[in-house]
């Protein structure tokens, strides 16, 4: 069943990206929005990228928050930079997986899709985006 896999682990260890142009456009949108959301406090995804670490405290440790911000940005920028690549190494594939997963969860949080009922009644365009990212993640997770 290699035929419909979007990502395939090759013998040399690299991960082949088999997304077509439309697929790469969806990934580009997702990566671009994560990069933007991390930099822009008014972005609709910003809150989900800055969720509390310890909800019992008013504020989280600034070091932990800063570390998180830097790691999310680094992953999203690496994923964005490698959008056109045919092959990814493990670090790049991990950056893709993390950033796609952040995009997926941020979409769910920003649109209130936090229950199965809400998810199934979401607008078709939104559902297409969610299902596409999930499909990418399924395939990528099989390689890692």
């Amino acid at each position, binding site marked *: 069943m290699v035929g419909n896999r979007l990502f395939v682990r090759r013998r040399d260890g690299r991960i082949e990206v088999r997304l077509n142009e439309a697929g790469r456009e969806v990934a580009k949108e997702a990566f671009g929005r994560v990069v933007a959301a991390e930099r822009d406090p008014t972005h609709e995804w910003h809150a989900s990228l800055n969720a509390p*670490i310890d909800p019992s405290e008013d504020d989280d440790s600034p070091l932990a928050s800063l570390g998180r911000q830097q790691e999310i940005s680094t992953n999203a920028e690496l994923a964005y930079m490698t959008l056109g690549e045919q092959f990814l190494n493990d670090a790049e594939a991990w950056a893709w997986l993390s950033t796609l997963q952040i995009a997926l969860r941020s979409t769910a949080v920003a649109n209130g899709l936090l229950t*199965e009922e809400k998810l199934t009644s979401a607008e078709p365009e939104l559902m297409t985006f969610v299902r596409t990212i999930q499909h990418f993640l399924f395939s990528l997770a099989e390689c890692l």
Partner: protein
Amino acid sequence: MKPMRERTTEGDVLTEQDVKTERPWNVVVWDDPVTPMSVVVVIFKKIFGYSNNKCTELMLKVHHEGRAIVWSGNRQRAESYCVKLQVAGLQSTIEKDE
């Protein structure tokens, strides 16, 4: 002749009552309806290095119970693991063990 040592170790040894155990901090992962199960397993393996079985067990606990404690220990490491899970896109928090 004066003895070489006047002190003994008696009294230096802590009794059971003197030992206070610090409660550990838990790293909690929360369920959401969009994250694929296989992605959760891959993230647990990458961050904690747990076996495939343990990762699957924890993932199923998150899925069925809404949350699971995936690691316990000192606060600093709990915070670090929580950040790693959040960077990987999972909803995670820390809490002091009850």
